[in-house]
């Protein structure tokens, strides 16, 4: 199963590496979102510093949704879903593999956005460990949910608008937890950063369990 998982992840990342959509289009767009958010807040430097944690996750949400969309468009455009169904690769490995690939891509996006808020919003990190753990927890939760809902809307005609509608309510707790944890790590809020980070791990664990169990149902065709 581990081998299958890695195989799927490697395949996804290779496809992505060739197309370079994540780094070439999504990351610059997400950076642009950071700029636009600064416009919205009238570039008020104290507001930006206070809100940096939350604005960061909003930008991740935006860019991440695009990456999730793409991760499944690549499959359905080429009819890969049928190939998967025919291949010996089990639904759980497929789920984990695609989650892993998304984790890497969203992680890269977050590195770009992290430098973005550091430079543009002038934040100071007070707790690097918490920042790192919260980012990892949030990214795991994000990728797992993303794969689960990505396959839900895969191959449907209006998926471009459906996916965000389905995804955002599910990601809301992660966004909430990620923003609060980041605020603690960036020293603008005193409390409970670690509680929020662990909440994200719990959410990730629950959705991983659901994904392992339900992914087969979502792949079935008729």
């Amino acid at each position: 199963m581990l081998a299958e998982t890695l195989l799927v992840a490697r395949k996804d990342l290779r496809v992505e590496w060739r197309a370079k959509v994540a780094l070439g289009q999504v990351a610059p767009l997400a950076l642009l979102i950071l700029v636009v958010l600064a416009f919205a807040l009238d570039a008020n430097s104290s507001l930006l510093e206070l809100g940096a944690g939350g604005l960061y996750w909003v930008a991740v949400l935006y860019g991440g949704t695009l990456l999730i969309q793409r991760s499944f468009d690549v499959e359905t455009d080429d009819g890969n879903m049928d190939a998967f169904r025919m291949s010996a690769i089990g639904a759980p490995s497929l789920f984990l593999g695609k989650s892993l690939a998304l984790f890497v891509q969203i992680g890269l996006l977050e590195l770009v956005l992290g430098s973005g808020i550091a430079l543009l919003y002038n934040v100071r990190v007070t707790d690097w460990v918490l920042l790192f753990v919260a980012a990892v927890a949030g990214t795991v939760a994000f990728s797992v949910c993303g794969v689960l809902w990505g396959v839900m809307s895969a191959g449907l005609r209006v998926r471009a608008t459906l996916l965000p509608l389905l995804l955002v309510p599910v990601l809301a707790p992660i966004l909430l937890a990620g923003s609060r944890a980041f605020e603690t790590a960036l020293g603008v809020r005193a409390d409970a950063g670690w509680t929020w980070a662990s909440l994200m791990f719990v959410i990730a664990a629950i959705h991983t369990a659901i994904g392992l169990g339900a992914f087969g149902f979502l792949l079935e065709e008729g």
Partner: protein
Amino acid sequence: MTSTTRSNAKMTATPATRVLGVLAIAATALMAVLGLFISPADVIQGEAVRMLYLHVPSIWIAYGAFVLTSVSSILFLRARKRREDQGRHYDRLAGSAAEVGVVFTGITLITGMLWGKVTWGTYWQWDARLTTTILLFVTYLGYLALRRLPADPMVRSQRAAVMALISFINVPIVHYSVDWWRTLHQKASLSVGRRPEITGEMYWTLLYSTLAVTIVATWLMIHRYRVIRLEELRDEEALAALISSRLKNDDGSN
């Protein structure tokens, strides 16, 4: 006019549901009289308490409907390979319950906001319950959107069923995280007076309203279920017509 000719004219009614419909109107009328005129104004909240006779039953119905959606979804996923109708009965039940649930969640939000305006002085508070409810509302709107998409009916129903289950599991996650958020950082003034003590006549009015709203919701769900069945019949017929016209064309060209 006899009831048989009329049931021919009206597709989704049967004598039994017509009785239920009349009962629903009567129950609602009595509910309005009790809630708006007979029950007293509250000592603290004044007349605003009358909003709760709609607000509280609506959210109960909404939650009940979403529970029904989840249970039917599980039954659908279990039955889809075995039963003769491929579990479509449960799928229709899930769909109609979710739609009625969304309608009543909407009513909950509207009545809640109006109640908040007079009681808190503002339409919206970032209160845990309100925030959870609006996320619930959007989640099930998404579920209904997924059900409406043009796709193979079985594929769509399967995905919708899984979505209903995940959404239901998500309700407590959303609720607790939002609750945590508000209690960890809340200013004390926000938590004051969310639910007043309800006793005596107000209590009975509230209990009765819940019954009346339940009758209304049941009527709605039954009819919606029948409409979904008709929609399925129509789609099947359209598909059959398409296939036969193709076959005819093939015959003509050969």
